[in-house]
């Protein structure tokens, strides 16, 4: 029983991490149809931003304040990744709208450069981020079943991001423009929406969320130049499985992959579990090529 609960929680936790990693992609890939292979590197940028924030707190603020660095690290990671996203969009991505496969290749090159940049600045070895004391330990629900606060925090963070995104996209003025541009670019342009600006903003927000993901990942995993490469393919799988262009789909996709991953890994082992999950995804896409939540359209291609 306790094991079952724990595994359920683990599944939920993995789902939340996958979702956080894939959320930014759901925007850049799902809405803008840009295949951003540098998404993983934006996550890495978020992680390093957290590392830097930690160092600043460590060096310049009294020790008692140190634990609160993480509160600041979340917006800082968002901001830095946001800026990187903005630069990337303005210098490169805007030449690639409507050429998804080319965007995939070009951003892969960008990812390579960013990784190497990180290696030059921070060195090849991993850096350590000390998690704040208030996230240590866990919630004891019964004997031998401890739910780590960090994982609960990440789940909460994902929910917060989702809610924020929902309000931004469906309730704000900016979000309305964004949807307008993504649905019918020409029409929106005719109505006086600056598509250039909206594109840049949308991409930057997607990147910023990747930054938040990076910040959260520092709690659980390694922080190094190749951090992004561990998550990028999984993130794409989540978006594709969920159905491109639908946030609900992305949530379902992440839940599906996370839960099955935990289940398979528990039944078999980590390697085989991973293989099984991927086989399931491939098989599922044969059955429903457009993913869990599909949009239908009348256009020829």
């Amino acid at each position, binding site marked *: 029983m306790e*094991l079952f609960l*724990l*595994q359920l929680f*683990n599944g939920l*936790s*993995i789902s939340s*991490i996958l979702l956080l990693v894939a959320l930014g992609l759901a925007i850049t890939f799902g809405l803008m149809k840009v295949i951003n292979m540098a998404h993983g590197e934006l996550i890495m940028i978020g992680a390093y931003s957290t590392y830097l924030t930690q160092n600043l707190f460590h060096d310049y603020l009294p020790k008692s304040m140190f634990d609160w660095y993480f509160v600041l690290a979340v917006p800082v990671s968002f901001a830095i990744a946001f800026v990187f996203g903005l630069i990337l969009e303005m210098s490169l991505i805007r030449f690639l709208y409507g050429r998804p496969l080319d965007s995939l290749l070009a951003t892969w090159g960008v990812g390579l450069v960013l990784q*190497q940049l990180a*290696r030059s600045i921070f060195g*090849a*070895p*991993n*850096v*350590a*981020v*000390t*998690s704040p004391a208030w996230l*240590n*330990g*866990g919630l004891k629900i019964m004997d*031998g079943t*401890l739910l*780590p*606060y*960090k*994982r609960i925090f990440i789940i909460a963070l994902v929910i917060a991001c989702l809610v924020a995104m929902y309000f931004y996209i469906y309730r704000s003025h900016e979000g309305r423009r964004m949807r307008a541009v993504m649905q019918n670019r020409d029409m929106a342009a005719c109505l006086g929406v600056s598509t250039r600006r909206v594109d840049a903003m949308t991409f930057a927000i997607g990147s910023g969320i990747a930054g938040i993901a990076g910040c959260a*990942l520092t*709690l*659980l*995993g*390694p*922080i*190094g130049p*190749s951090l992004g*490469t*561990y*998550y990028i393919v999984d993130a794409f799988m989540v978006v594709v499985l969920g159905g491109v262009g639908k946030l609900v789909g992305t949530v379902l996709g992440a839940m599906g992959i996370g839960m099955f991953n*935990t289940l398979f*890994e*528990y039944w078999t*082992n*980590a*390697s085989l579990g*991973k293989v099984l999950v991927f086989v399931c995804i491939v098989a599922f896409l044969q059955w429903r090529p457009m993913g869990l939540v599909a949009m239908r359209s009348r256009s020829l291609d």
Partner: protein
Amino acid sequence: MKKRMFYQCGLLLVALTIVLAGCGGNNKPASTNSETDKPTNAANTGGSAEGEIKVGILHSQSGTMAISEVSVIDAEMMAIDEINAAGGVLGKKIVPVLEDGASDWPTFAEKARKLISEDKVATVFGGWTSASRKAMKPVFEELNGLLWYPVQYEGLESSPNIFYTGATTNQQIVPSVSWLLENRGKKFYLLGSDYVFPRTANLVIKEQLKAEGGELVGEEYTPLGHTDYSTLISKIKAAKPDVVYNTLNGDSNVAFFKQLKDAGITAKDLTTLSVSVAEEEIRGIGVDVLEGHLAAWNYYQTTDTPANKTFVENYKKKYGDERVTADPIEAGYTAVYLWAAAVEKAGSTEVDKVKEAAKELEWDAPEGKVKIDGATQHIYKTVRIGEVQANGQFKELWNSGEAVKPDPYLKGYEWAASIQPTE
């Protein structure tokens, strides 16, 4: 359409000429690619000129393995500088030729071939992963080169063209398992990354557990780069082991130890012993997470020998105060000195003569006295079990007292009979 083809053809021809010309140009023994000012490459201009001995340094400077291997390069370069400052070998200066293995095994093979047949180096110091060594081995054997390999590995190998200055299984894993059985408990959980070293090491451990009264309660491998250990930790919890014997590699260690701590398991609740976590890795994982966990090596920065004192001092002076030394770094450093001593003794850099001279050669390494075992070309090493302290250094809990004779095929252990190669 056709006209375009025509230009393409021309282009092909031009490009091919360039490639061939490039190849041809580099063909001459006195190579001409000295277009960089880097000291490492300037070496090529000298060729085998009087007063210089070229040696190759072949580690990954890019890619995933760069994390670990770059520090070994530093140590080897430092040893070369020190020897040169003291007058060189046979009165000649050692000139290193650096090549990048790029964390890619075929590249290691290619570069090894280049170092031996193009640069004509006297010896090569290089490799980290077993895979890179396995890739280079046929090249060294074919061209009769000499490779010094500085990392602990899974044993079951002994090539006439390789000197192994890292530990083999009976100098790290076997004694540490015995120690754990005696001091920490009988129930073992084996956790490793999914590649050759952990699988082979665990094969050995399983035989040893059977022979020495241990009990195996679980064995798991995770893909390289795996970052979520929550399920695995559940499995470990369910199996209730006394000891987790950890052969995880690189980034996985970070995720595993962080998440182990989150699950409320500290070093007090569960003993873990790692064979791939050294001082350098501690910095990337975080001391707060690792404190109290164990590791088995032959050398720690804190190892108390006079040679080590100067070694650590020089290393920090040269590369910065925040740098730490670790077992493979020391092994790389030792390798250079052992080769230099062998060359001095042989009076030549010829591979066969150096090999002959290296037999039973002794040297005061930072880890203590080491001796080359002529039969296996491994070195005698002292085994040390250490515990991670709050300052990121190890405290030695136990050592083997004297340097242990290398036994890569575990011929000295009856229980290992089934592991040994069949021929």
